[in-house]
């Protein structure tokens, strides 16, 4: 009988769940007023241009330092920006320009080619990491991959200097060592940031395209030979 009664009133047991009257429920639901923030935004319009530029440059420089010493920090990810990657990409493309560029011969990578390789490569790696279930956002990933080209750009500058001295076996050996080291550095730095956002057993799947990407860039740098 009692069971049938209970079955017929399935929510009966909940009817007496309530806050007793002698415990006052009080609180303050209020949204913090954003007027102070608006004031700040207006004030950055009035500051001198030099300050604005310096602030951005400082942020970019800060990220360069994070790439130089890749520890697991989230500074690169938290405030991403694409100034650094753009700067590095343009520098690298300019340094790779003028390599074995005869009038007809297109053996050396042109500016546009390098640009396209870097940006489309980064986009594809980002899409791949997102499809594999990564938690990092699109632009954050682009930011990380772009900043981690820095060791390779430095290697390119070194290679160009070495090539001024001559292009024999010794110079090739030096260039090989430098490019290999910087390629390893780039890959390591970018995986330090990217791999954290992946489930642990899939890190290898994300690292491989990054490895391939920097390998292709490193190969372009290594096979660069200046025109006479």
């Amino acid at each position, binding site marked *: 009988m009692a069971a049938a009664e209970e*079955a*017929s009133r399935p929510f009966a047991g909940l009817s007496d769940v309530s806050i007793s009257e002698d415990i006052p429920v009080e609180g303050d639901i209020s949204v913090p007023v954003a007027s102070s923030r608006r004031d700040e935004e207006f004030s950055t319009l009035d500051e001198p241009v030099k300050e604005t530029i310096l602030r951005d440059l400082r942020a970019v420089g800060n990220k360069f330092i994070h790439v130089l010493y890749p520890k697991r920090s989230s500074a690169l990810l938290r405030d991403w920006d694409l100034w650094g990657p753009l700067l590095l990409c343009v520098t690298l493309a300019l340094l790779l320009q003028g390599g*074995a560029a*005869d009038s*007809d*011969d*297109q*053996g050396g*990578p*042109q500016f546009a*080619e390098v640009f*396209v*390789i870097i940006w489309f490569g980064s986009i594809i790696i980002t*899409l*791949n990491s*997102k*499809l*594999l*279930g990564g938690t990092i956002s699109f632009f954050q990933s682009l930011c990380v991959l772009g900043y981690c080209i820095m060791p390779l750009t430095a290697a390119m500058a070194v290679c160009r200097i070495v090539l001024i001295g001559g*292009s*024999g*076996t010794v110079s*090739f*050996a030096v260039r090989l060592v430098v490019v290999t080291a910087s390629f390893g550095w780039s890959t390591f730095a970018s995986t330090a940031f990217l791999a954290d956002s992946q489930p642990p*057993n*899939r890190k*290898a*799947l994300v690292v*491989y*395209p990054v490895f*391939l990407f920097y*390998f*292709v860039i490193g*190969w372009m740098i*290594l*096979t660069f*030979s*200046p*025109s*006479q």
Partner: protein
Amino acid sequence: MSAGSGNRNTNTEPWGSFDEHLIQGSGSAVVDMENMDDTSGSSFEDMGEMHQRMKEEEEVAAEAAATEDDSTEDGEFLGMKGLKGQLGRQVADEVWQAGKRQASKAFNLYANIDILRPYFDVEPVQVRSRLIESMIPVRMINFPQKIAGELYGPLMLVFTLVAILLHGMKTSGTVIREGTLMGTAIGTCFGYWLGVSSFIYFLAYLVNAQITMLQTLSLLGYGLFGHCVVLLITYNIHFHFLFYVLWLLLGGLSTLRMVAALLSRTVGQTPRLLLCGTLTLLHMLFLLYLHFAYHKIVEGLLDSLEGPNMAPMQRVARDVPELTVNATARSLGVLLRAH
């Protein structure tokens, strides 16, 4: 009361209890033969479509609820603000709706990536085992062979092939007149993968073979593993005889694997001959083409690593030595010997 055995009407609630919706009947199961392949993409595609349809329904319901709320509010304020207020509100509403529609369209475009997500759901061990299996033909052709329906492995293999091709073009000093090295490499590899997969799928559709587009993409993609290995070896060791041996061996093995998989899913002698013959021809010829078209041995210059580039290549008859090793390997050897 009602028909059907085992029906107890325990309808005691005014809103009609849960029992009303119990499925009556003798409970015969229907097995959907379409989804027999547990790795076929069709079930995932359905899931993706369902998900999108659900989202759209939600959005439509939310919009309907929103407009209902707004219209009741407008009715109340009509007396106070008059016509002008209502017009302004309507315009603002329209702008908001249009903006929301644009944003949701853009978001759906972005969310289309989620349709591809199931095809990238792999573990590294799986990828490795599939790479090795792609070189091992399976002899069972009486029952449809299982073909993995993933896109990660094939995509990575195509990119690897692009990188190897670039290496080959660079070290042989290939001159591309109309276009760039990178563009040619990417165009060739992706064109082959997508184009031949579509063509094989089209032929399979004509001869009524049991294979989906995803499976042809996946099959052909993994078949490129053999090509990658052969090209990696022969771009560095220019030994013609070695290339032909590897072409037959590794190229042949990966082709046999694909052919066996297709045979197991096709019925009839002529369709089998057509499908498998086409695939064999295209796959083997592609490897031949990659080796010979992008890897000409230039007179006096084997790579662009040492010294300035010479004038555009000239074809002069000469005796090609039996075994030539890539200058990279040669200088590495010199370095090692020096220590």
